[in-house]
């Protein structure tokens, strides 16, 4: 199995699955500290780190999104709010799947699901020169990375890393299937040891590209196998871990 998207290092997503402190905009409720969503074991694991985050909130930090407070101790420590939303907002460095909507001179316009289309230079591909242009058509899927993404400027994408290598990015092949899921599910799937991906990989070989903008591209040996993977991934949004295991057991039995 080839997993282009999951190869990049993202050590912190979903690292502390047990630490749940629900935050709402501009509200800090001390009573809520004790009744998180996790089990009793999870409650114990919610360590001093989150309490430190809660202290920062008490000290006057303003929460603007609703979601669960997460913490990464590594690299100096970071806190963030993990919220479930559907609309993507471009972030610098994010790997996304874009759809080519127009070719305008020496840049391509890509729909990435944000508020405005992203631009992609024809020189931003591995081995591309003024003579040797990449073969990109309107409607193609492109897996790339944001070089520029802020609220005041047009987002700009590239398909090469800083050393000029493609490192998995570029045009995605003609066949396969593209669909959309929520951003929360994408983050869950991109976690380093994601159970869903591990369980699916035991079913049969397939290719998978995960874009941080909520788009997933899947290709397996047959159309039927592709659609099975698509249905399972789409259902993961609503299924619990046990329901998923049951569904997968049924599928592997039928094979």
């Amino acid at each position: 199995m080839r997993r282009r998207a999951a190869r990049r290092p993202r050590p912190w997503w979903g690292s502390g699955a047990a630490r749940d402190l629900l935050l709402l905009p501009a509200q800090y409720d001390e009573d809520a500290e004790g009744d998180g969503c996790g089990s009793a074991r999870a409650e114990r694991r919610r360590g001093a780190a989150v309490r430190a985050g809660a202290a920062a909130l008490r000290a006057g930090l303003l929460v603007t999104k609703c979601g669960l407070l997460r913490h990464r101790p590594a690299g100096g420590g970071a806190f963030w709010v993990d919220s479930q939303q559907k609309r993507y907002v471009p972030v610098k460095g994010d790997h996304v799947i874009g759809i080519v909507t127009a070719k305008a001179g020496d840049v391509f316009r890509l729909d990435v699901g944000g508020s405005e289309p992203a631009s992609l230079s024809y020189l931003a591909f591995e081995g591309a020169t003024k003579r040797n242009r990449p073969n990109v058509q309107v409607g193609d899927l492109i897996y790339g990375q944001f070089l520029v993404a802020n609220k005041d400027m047009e987002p700009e994408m590239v398909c090469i890393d800083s050393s000029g290598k493609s490192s998995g990015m570029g045009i995605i092949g003609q066949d396969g299937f593209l669909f959309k899921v929520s951003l929360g599910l994408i983050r869950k799937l991109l976690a380093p040891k994601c159970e869903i991906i591990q369980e699916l990989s035991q079913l049969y070989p397939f290719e998978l590209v995960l874009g941080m903008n909520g788009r997933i591209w899947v290709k397996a040996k047959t159309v039927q196998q592709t659609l099975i993977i698509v249905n399972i991934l789409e259902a993961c949004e609503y299924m619990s871990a046990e329901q998923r295991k049951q569904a997968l057991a049924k599928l592997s039995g039928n094979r």
Partner: protein
Amino acid sequence: MAAVMAVESGQSRLRPFSCELGLLSRPDGRATFLQGVTPSVLAGLYGPVEAKISKELPDRAALEVLLRPKVGLPGVLERSREQLLRQTCEAVVLGALHPRTAITLVLQVLSDASLLSCCLNAACMALLDAGLPLAALFCGVTCALQPDGSVLLDPTARQEQEARAILTFAIGSSERKVLMATTKGSCSVEEMQQCLAAAQGAADTIFQFYRDSVRRRYCKS
């Protein structure tokens, strides 16, 4: 995901209310709000999306609210409520974080009687569901001033007709400040303050309800 709660508060009580998140599949944020048995509002929020050049604002997001009645086309009443809702939402949405974009909120009334407070609550839940940056939460509370001078929270359609005055407040979660107030009928300043105090008391239960419904949503994942 529906939750129902009945609340006892001071002078009167709010009718049981419930909400459902995620009924619609296409919008970025969605919520259904039921107050009592009848007045229910379905809300769908789209944004931040690309704005039309004519509506684009250089420094903040352009917010648009559309209120659709149960039958027929939106009229003057809907337009006036749209303005109230838009101004309330603009006060809490941090639009400066998404300049040159558009946010569209569509509210579909599903019952004969529609309280403005119900629309306000549905709007806030949709904003929460979409994950837009908010400076605070808000809730809507309607008070009816009865002919004998007593205050009735969250009146039914019939009680609303009998009432001397109807007051609707949008109350923000930070220090329970008033974001919007609208009145119909005559009332004295003291009576208005009495209604405001009652509404602020009821606001806490609605904020607690928001918290409970959001927790239910996040626990599932």
